[in-house]
């Protein structure tokens, strides 16, 4: 079972896709061009502070709003290892799976974690923060299949006999 630790950034409820990446930057050519503006309406300095392997812990309904797939792509490009939230909006959830960004639903962690803290994650089993274990569940098989294939693009390449 995959295991990792990371430093936590704490965000609130209803972090929408316009906060993750405002529409005005969506016509920039690449996700790397867009990523300095991630979370800019809420915390303009945040994108510059996030380091490879960090973890976002958020409240309910993370990723609500538009269908923009740049939202999970940018979070991944910033180096975020996974997002742990009380709940996720459905389009964001699908987009994240298809792009190989790990999402974990956990109801209680958000209320007990402090920004800057190190937490450890055992995928499909638990999150440990400040000595306390928070249980997490495994994803359904059809989603694991997409992740195991390396995302939806790779799954389709396999379908087309390319890889």
């Amino acid at each position, binding site marked *: 079972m995959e295991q990792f630790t990371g430093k936590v950034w704490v965000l609130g409820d209803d972090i929408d896709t316009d906060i993750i990446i405002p529409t005005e930057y969506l016509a920039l050519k690449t996700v790397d061009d867009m990523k300095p503006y991630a979370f800019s309406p809420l915390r303009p300095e945040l994108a510059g502070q996030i380091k490879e392997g960090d973890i976002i812990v958020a409240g309910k309904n993370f990723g609500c709003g538009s*269908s923009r797939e740049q939202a999970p792509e940018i979070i991944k490009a910033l180096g975020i290892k996974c997002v742990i939230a009380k709940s996720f909006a*459905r389009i964001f959830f*699908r987009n994240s799976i298809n792009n190989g960004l790990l999402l974990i639903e956990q109801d209680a962690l958000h209320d007990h974690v402090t920004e800057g803290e190190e937490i450890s994650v055992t995928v499909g089993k638990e999150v440990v923060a400040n000595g306390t274990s928070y249980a997490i569940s495994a994803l359904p098989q059809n989603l694991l299949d997409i992740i195991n294939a390396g995302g939806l693009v790779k799954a389709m390449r396999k379908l087309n006999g390319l890889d």
Partner: protein
Amino acid sequence: MGYTVIEKIIRNNIGKDVKAGEIVTVNVDRVMIHDIFIPFVASKFEEMGFTKLWDPDKVVLIYDHLVPASQVDDTRHFKVGNEFAAKYGMKNVHRSDGICHQLMTEAGYVKPGNIVFGTDSHTTTYGCVGAFSSGIGYTEMASILGTGTMWVKVPETIRVEINGTLPDNVMAKDIILKLIGDLGADGATYKALEFTGDTVANMSVASRMSMSNMAIEAGAKCAVFTPDEKTAEYCEVTLTDKEKDLVGDADAVYCRTITYQAEEFVPVCACPSNVDNVRPVSELEGTEIDQVFIGSCTNGRLEDLMAAAEVLKGKKVAPFVKLIVTPASRKIYTQALENGTMKILADAGAMITHPSCGLCCGRTGGILTDGEKVVATNNRNFLGRMGSSKVGIYLASPKTAAACAVAGKIVSA
């Protein structure tokens, strides 16, 4: 045991019984891609190794977020879109006809009972004609373009029953805002909303569209209305027995039922900066405003413009307020010209823009700055949606918006 409307649509599509919670693969009847995401769809499609579209006639490409271009980079999206359409033999391309969600039903691409996906979260709109429609990302869109199929989890359904007659100053927009306020921004996540009751039966397809459009603001996967004679007339079809049967069965399983009496609705606003932060207009009266926006795929239809014109007739917009009106499509634009609505709006002091997403997505046509407040008829009031992150966006019905434009502050129509 009976079926919900969405269970019936999916059952009819795949030819076997389904129940909420099952994961199934559906056959897609139509897809919509808009200008913002076409470059990403095109590159993912080719990266996946596809060489042809599963059915070019089932793919619709609509330029709406970026037309007319306001930045040089925007034009790249049109170039990529035009090349993609030419290369793969797509005929259904709209370059300046209006907003995608208006055009998909207006131009006849979506019919009752269809399953439709689009690269925009407000794709839930087509439930107004009894279709199952939902927003997806560009990677999934690319996979549909190649396969014509998509996996879905059959959603549980929240049944919303509304009976009675709405007060004169209340519109369908007030109903859906009230519902989103009651459900919360995640109250319907992964679920379907099914609207029923005599208030809904008496509503125009345009009003139903305002409601299904905003279902996503409560997190819903889709929202659906039973197709009826009004739907048939709007879609220019004769309903088949299967389509007439898209009614929630009395013994269907619903995860929740919410009932409203129409007479009890009042004009409301969704206050900054969450759509579920809904308050009666009466509690906000006197709040000074800088701008009013009437338009969008939520409320840019002929009946919306006419409702605003009824309030604005013979009056003038307050001198310090900018009123921006954006029809949802060219067809609506010309209808509003022909029936005199545009003249009433212009005489009152409105700036009338070309049909497009425009101000709703904060790209063009009335961007605001720190400390300003806007009353707007669109579907989102998120931070930074219409300019700087210190703009206060109040979502309201066209009637309320028009009354606010005249008063220069928030008031009831």
